[in-house]
């Protein structure tokens, strides 16, 4: 149970940190920020990699989780980068 308390601390502090970091973002960057944050939520891939694969069902689930999380990670970062490379000041 103690470990959950510790993890709970990390959770709460990270949320507060996130709220502080983003609170004053110019509207120009709303879309790239959303898209970039979306790519970060692909961190689920790290979780998917650690899944146990003892049964056939578990293996299929792990494969699907890894595949979809990878689409999220690669697609998310690339599209954000493509978008940001267009933002220029002249």
């Amino acid at each position: 149970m103690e470990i959950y308390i510790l993890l709970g601390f990390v959770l709460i502090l990270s949320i507060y940190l996130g709220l502080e970091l983003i609170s004053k973002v110019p509207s120009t960057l709303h879309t790239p920020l959303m898209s970039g944050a979306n790519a970060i939520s692909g961190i689920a891939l790290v979780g998917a990699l650690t899944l146990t694969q003892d049964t056939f069902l578990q293996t299929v689930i792990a494969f699907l989780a890894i595949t979809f999380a990878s689409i999220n990670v690669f697609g998310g970062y690339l599209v954000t980068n493509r978008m940001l490379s267009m933002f220029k000041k002249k």
Partner: protein
Amino acid sequence: MENFDITLLQNIAYIFAAILFITGIKMLGKEATAQRGNVISAFGMFIAIIVTAINIVNPFVVLGGILLGAFIGSVIAVRVKMTSIPEMVALFNGFGGLATFFIAWSEMVNANDNLFQYLLVILTIYIGGVTFSGSLIAFGKLSERLKIGKGSLVTNLFISFFYLSLISILAMLVLPMIGGLPFNFETIFYIYLVLVMLGGVGFVLPIGGGDMPVVISLLNSLSGIAAAFAGLILVNNVLIVAGSLVGASGLILTIIMAKAMNRTIGNILFVGYAASSASPSSEQGEVKPINAEDAFLILENASSVLIVPGYGMAVAQAQHVVRELGELLEENGADVKYGIHPVAGRMPGHMNVLLAEANVSYDLLAEPDDVNPMMDTVDVAIVIGANDVVNPSATEEPGSPIYGMPILEVANARTVFVLKRSMSSGFAGVQNPLFFKENTRMLFGDAKESISGLVSEFKD
């Protein structure tokens, strides 16, 4: 001992990854550093994935999945048109949610003897599943593949599924604590998985297109929260930190969007415009159409021009000709600005992306608070396919459903051109008195053709 060392190494690497995510997200918040911020965050992701992959269970499954996902994701990302960005973000977001849904499902077997773990799994399945199916519906709506109206039979059916899914998660959370679930648990669990998916559909289906900026931000936030919960299940700090950052940033965007519409998040999600008391504005005058030639004559003499784009510009793909017109006006000696409303379009900052694609410098883009005070010095305001965000009812008619919403007060400019396909009202279904104002001229037709017409007048 060897195992311990790998875990230690992974945890140290996760700390670095977390630092890179935090730095990356901070840099994403400023124009000058945004692109580097994204690269830094991607580097953090790279580190986290590599160290996790050191001791993987089944290399074929893992590598196969990563390569397949990387291929699909990259192809979509490289090929997508900038006008389709909103639906792409929705789709990627949904896939992230689906991954956490699977993680929680897989971890169910480890949750049998641990009540807390069980509760986390049930919650994560719900958030991840609703994020996935909700995002798919948002994708369908944004790409206009899905056209099911509010109030239709299908919508109502799925709304009941949404409530059913809420009841089922409550049951799943509470029943084990007060003496276990009846029947065969496995069967109930699978029914729960299906209900969650259907519930997500029912959550987003009734929400209208104009409210999509809020929905997308919220789903984005949910996918982060789902990842953070998955981190709690797996006892993995980097998932918790990264997921929370995304959850928080999505939440802030959601709040900004809701404020820009002067509505509460609950009102947007569960009520919609239709239920607000609509007072039909009776006084209407006559609209005054104008043709490209006359519009050009007015523009030629203008020394200050404000361009206000809306969803119509995205639909007509008119951003490039708009930039061309802007440049011609500048060459003609006019001061050109773009007035961007936060909820114009279908996602937060939608107009900014399109204008950036067309090479419009971002320092020419101004927010309502910046342009409204000097609106009376603007000679011509050109409204391109925007409607509700320039509707003066928001400031003049206390009975109007959109009263109180901050708008771009273009009606105060000397002359207003409204480019519009027809006289239909905007998403909110509210008549727009702007069209009938003394100083308003309507330029009917496709936005791209109308602007092209102006551009060729300038070139002649």
